[in-house]
């Protein structure tokens, strides 16, 4: 090889595998990527070991794409290692960007999650109450498992992150744009989210159907009604995170006639996506009467889980107050 190609690593932490799928979904475009770079680490697809990464020189990987939130000590160790070896780290997908769906674990802690998973689910048969331990002795040998943290972290809460590729999972065009920008060295300022900085409503096809003054008299959940496929979801009384969510996703959910759930996170101007959406939805509840307001608020099931569906670890409070967890 005459000219050395830039080295690229992929890694996954607490995630579902959908982000790996998004890379594979690049289809023939992945050939362009492979042509331009050397993949030096990708546990889901290629047989490299941690020791291979440890043997690399610091900063020798051009870019590491890391998906998934950080929930285990092993994940913390691996992302710190990759940070040390990489010039750029890109948080890939909602979970590493904001904490994502695994971040909803921040309504609980280790103890309550273990109790549920290993004792109280209806399908659990575990009379000895065996739970995974960090150290176990078997035949005089000590076996170890990573530490399970009480709190789920977004990637930037554990290591410095250079760029964020949002989405659950990030769409193909944003991935290819990001890869292109990195290869050509045409990157925006460090810390940028690689998607347009405006709200989803700005791009939404249904924006024209939005009445001049939005007002909600009744909250409906998607399964309770037949959803009009042309009309703004909020105008139909269905909670849609569009106003508090960054655009760039290609409106995949909207086109499938489902409201936005907020996986792209907030725009740059917002610290806390859930609080900002709460502010918006409270503003359009169409009543000034205290009793009516309370009734409407009651009808919003699980506001914290809905408004922070993808962003609880990256929110201002980050998790449920520890001492109140049963």
């Amino acid at each position, binding site marked *: 090889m005459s000219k050395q190609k830039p080295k690229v690593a992929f890694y996954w932490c607490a995630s579902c595998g959908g982000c790996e799928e998004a890379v594979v979904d690049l289809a023939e475009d992945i050939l362009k990527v492979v042509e331009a770079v050397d993949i030096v680490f990708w546990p889901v697809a290629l047989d490299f070991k941690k020791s291979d990464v440890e043997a690399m020189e610091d900063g020798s990987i051009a870019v590491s794409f890391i998906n998934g939130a950080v929930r285990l*000590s092993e994940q*913390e160790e691996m992302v*710190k290692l990759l940070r040390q070896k990489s010039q750029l780290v890109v948080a890939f997908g909602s979970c590493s960007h904001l904490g994502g769906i695994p971040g909803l674990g921040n*309504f609980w*802690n280790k103890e309550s999650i273990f109790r549920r998973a290993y004792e109280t689910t209806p399908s659990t048969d575990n009379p000895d109450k065996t739970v995974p331990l960090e150290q176990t002795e078997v035949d005089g040998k000590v076996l170890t498992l990573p530490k399970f*943290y*009480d*709190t789920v*972290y977004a990637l930037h*809460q*554990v*290591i410095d992150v250079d760029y964020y590729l949002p989405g659950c999972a990030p769409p193909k065009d944003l991935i290819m744009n990001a890869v292109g920008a990195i290869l050509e060295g045409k990157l925006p300022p460090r810390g940028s989210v690689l998607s347009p900085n405006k709200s989803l409503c700005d791009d939404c096809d249904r924006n024209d159907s939005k009445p001049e003054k939005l007002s909600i008299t009744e909250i409906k959940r998607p399964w309770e009604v037949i959803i009009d496929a042309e009309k703004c979801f909020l105008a139909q009384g269905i909670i849609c995170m569009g106003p508090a969510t960054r655009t760039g996703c290609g409106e995949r959910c909207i086109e499938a006639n489902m409201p936005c759930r907020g996986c792209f996170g907030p725009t740059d101007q*917002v*610290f*806390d996506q*859930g*609080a*900002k959406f*709460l*502010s918006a*939805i*409270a*503003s359009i*509840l169409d009543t*000034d009467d*205290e009793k009516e*307001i*309370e009734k409407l*608020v009651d009808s*919003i099931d*699980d*506001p*914290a*889980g809905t*408004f922070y569906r993808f962003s609880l670890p990256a*929110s*201002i*409070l*980050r*998790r*449920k*107050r*520890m*001492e*109140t*967890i049963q």
Partner: protein
Amino acid sequence: MTHENFEPKLVGFLCTWCSYTGADLAGTARMDYAPNMRVIRVMCSGRVDPQFVLKAFKEGADGVLISGCHPGDCHYQEGNYKALRRHRLLSKLLEQLGIEKERFRLEWVSAAEGAKFQKVCNEFTEEIRNMGPLNLNGGIHEQAKA
């Protein structure tokens, strides 16, 4: 856990037209009240972004008060109704995050109600004193960066 030496830290967002003027009246009339409230003047209770409330709790407040004009009296017509809707919804969300609804209060205090402001501050302080500190960040910083 005893709360013997616990002095609650309270943050109050007061609208400039009614509640802040009411608080001012309590001061000029030399009414005594608990000194625990840190007052932040805002143009309207409807200006209080829920992010402000979360930030106050995050930064160590044990209780947060929003105070505005009585219903119907808002200088901007509707702001206090917005505050009311946000308060009810945010209370519900805070409870899900383990912050009791008693720690987040909404009160209507007019410019003439210095005595009511005095009463609200005293009551709120005592209530939070009995509840104890919020101790929000215990447990978050278990690992290295953070």
